[in-house]
């Protein structure tokens, strides 16, 4: 596969690995946060950590839209499917995420609710067309990458005059979340968590461009390198971050130039701006209320807004007691710091969202990284 295989080549990985080993300053640590779950996944799946020097540490961030969705919104979706007899369509990722009382969309589907997995918003539109007598709700989640396809679907529904289609919008914005992490006291306080640099999102940036990160690099004096999702991209970006840190720079650099430009995808951005507007604030699991961090559907498209068509109450639901997802999502704790990890909470029986999505930090640790625990524990106690 072109543009995939060559970015996974072992011979090149060895080269970049040697370069990193040569260039790191043995006397310091490099704490590099990958905001995106895609990077987390690549790091674990390909075993990238093995190719890095010991003093380069990956800190897993909140970049998985499934993990950051608050329990209350999942409860809303469950209510919609159960009480309003709608056909609830959503991406496969959402089906197993537990809401309150350990219910999930998959469980209520088993109980008879009409929940359908779709691969694309186009599938959801088709379901609406095929079922004119039923209300079809698309439970929309995702960052800037996944928002434009939702915008297209809403515009298409309007153009076609689809009367039974609406979107339960949970689209959130990446820059607001990064800013929130950088501003949180734990991260600012010297001595607790240090994040020395950031891997910038790949596909989010392909839509919004590299420009939005310029503010953080400047304001928080941290280097940002926009990194592709293949393992070589991650390693090369780590090298670029290490170089910046060694030189005392904090610029926005772009490793993923084959897709990301400074301005991003103008057409997609214009479509999103046409259909959506900012919410004043939105709850993120782990981060709490984050100002201007999510989108809602503009009133011109109110007919396609589930929150206008149905009663969707604000639900205050709390996470399972003992679940450290909030701290993990901010990079303050590691999955192994959670008492429930691997005992009560496993991917078969997830307690928190970090264990559900295969990109969640807990699931990734459990699935791919557990055998490192002994080594890590030894290192920590040393």
């Amino acid at each position, binding site marked *: *596969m072109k543009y*995939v295989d060559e970015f*996974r*080549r*072992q011979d090149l*990985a*060895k080269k970049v*690995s040697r370069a990193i080993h040569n260039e790191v300053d043995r006397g310091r640590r490099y704490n590099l946060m990958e905001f995106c*779950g*895609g990077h987390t996944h690549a790091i*674990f*799946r*390909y*075993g*990238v*950590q*093995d*190719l890095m020097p010991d003093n380069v540490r990956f800190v897993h961030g909140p970049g*998985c*839209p*499934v993990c950051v969705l608050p329990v209350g919104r999942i409860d809303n979706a469950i209510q919609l499917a159960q009480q309003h007899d709608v056909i609830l369509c959503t*991406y*496969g*990722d959402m*089906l*197993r995420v537990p809401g309150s009382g350990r219910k999930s969309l998959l469980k209520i589907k088993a109980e008879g609710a009409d929940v*359908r*997995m*779709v*691969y694309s918003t186009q*599938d959801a539109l088709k379901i609406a067309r095929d079922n004119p007598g039923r209300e079809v709700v698309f439970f929309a989640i*995702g960052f800037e990458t*996944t928002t434009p396809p939702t915008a297209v679907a809403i515009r298409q529904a309007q153009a076609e005059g689809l009367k039974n289609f609406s979107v339960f919008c949970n689209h959130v914005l990446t820059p607001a979340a990064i800013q929130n992490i950088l501003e949180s006291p734990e991260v600012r306080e010297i001595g607790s968590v240090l994040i020395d640099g950031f891997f910038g999102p790949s596909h989010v940036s392909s839509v919004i461009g590299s420009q939005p990160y310029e503010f953080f690099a400047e304001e928080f004096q941290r280097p940002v390198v926009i990194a592709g999702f293949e*393992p070589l991209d991650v390693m090369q970006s780590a090298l670029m971050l290490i170089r910046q840190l060694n030189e005392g720079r904090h610029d926005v650099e772009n490793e993923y130039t084959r897709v990301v430009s400074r301005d991003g995808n103008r057409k997609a951005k214009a479509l999103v701006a046409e259909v959506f507007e900012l919410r004043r604030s939105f709850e993120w699991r782990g981060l709490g209320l984050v100002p201007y961090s999510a989108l809602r559907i503009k009133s011109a498209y109110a007919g396609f807004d589930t929150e206008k068509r149905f009663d969707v109450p604000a639900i205050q639901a709390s996470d399972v007691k003992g679940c450290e997802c909030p701290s993990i999502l901010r990079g303050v704790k590691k999955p192994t710091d959670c008492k429930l990890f691997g005992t009560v909470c*496993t*991917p*078969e029986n997830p307690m928190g969202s970090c264990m559900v*999505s*295969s*990109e969640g930090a807990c699931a990734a640790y*459990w*699935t*791919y*990284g*557990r*055998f490192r625990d002994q080594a890590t524990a030894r290192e920590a106690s040393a």
Partner: protein
Amino acid sequence: MSVKAKRFPQRLNIRSGTIDMTHGSGGRAMAQLIEELFVTHFDNDLLRQANDQAAFDVPAGRLVMSTDGHVISPLFFPGGDIGSLSVHGTLNDVAMAGARPLYLSSGFILEEGFPLADLERIVISMAAAAKRAGVPVVTGDTKVVERGKGDGVFITTTGVGIVPKGVNISGDRARPGDAILVSGSIGDHGVAIMSSRENLTFETTIESDSAALHKLVASMVEAVPDIHCLRDPTRGGLATTLNELALQSGVGMQLTEDAIPVRPAVSAACELLGLDPLYIANEGKLICICAPADAQRLLAVMRADPLGAEAAIIGEVIEDAHGFVRMQTGFGGSRVVDWLTGEQLPRIC
């Protein structure tokens, strides 16, 4: 028996008829269905005796018995259908003990309204699979459930077979140092099924690998009677099956990603859907664990069989108190290969 023609004045309307409740009621309609469809196609002496059971002599040795229920959507998929699958699946379960399968039975649960034409297609395919395998379906059962209470057709098959003397294959016999072999490319069946599911439409030339492996097993057992473990990596894929074996034997495993055969179309489809080929189902592959000294000989025997042409040694059994299956990645790092959790759902992130 010239009475037969008089018993059923009209032949079954296979072209446009459907299953109704009478086909499971024990009455004349059921007898006709059995005679004109099942007996006609499965055709063998034992079945023709029309008893509620089949009686046969068995050769000396250890008898193996295995049963498998088959539910699949869609019923017809590239490279097979529920009929051939239900024969292969059970034959393989019997064969994984190193046994030579002797006879099969089949139980059909049909949903009211199921087209007879589809049923005939399934029965013909099943009969052909049994014939190719040389293992007859000698007894069976049919039930009909009301519309909405089944998914068209469910088939349960049971198989019996005989294990040759001196063969002792079991999931708890993997020992550190043993070699791990796989008989060919992984993930073909699961991807073929997904490609034909309505809401995931993508086009590929991949066909299910559904096949009966007992002849391959027979030549393997003949070459190396002391094979330690055999198992077919069906649901949960290669990863889950290796974890089962590691747990059963109390050992760990070390795999080499680059050695595991995966077809380009399977990797491409998995990339597209965010899935991992290691967790995708197979229906015509086996995993073999044997002493290191036997590995090359077995590999040669496997490769000589068309069903094992792409066989490969993919790793070794190691000592590990945690029972982890680890893998050296093609990229040069290492990772754990865990059990499958939940269902493999296509993901966006």
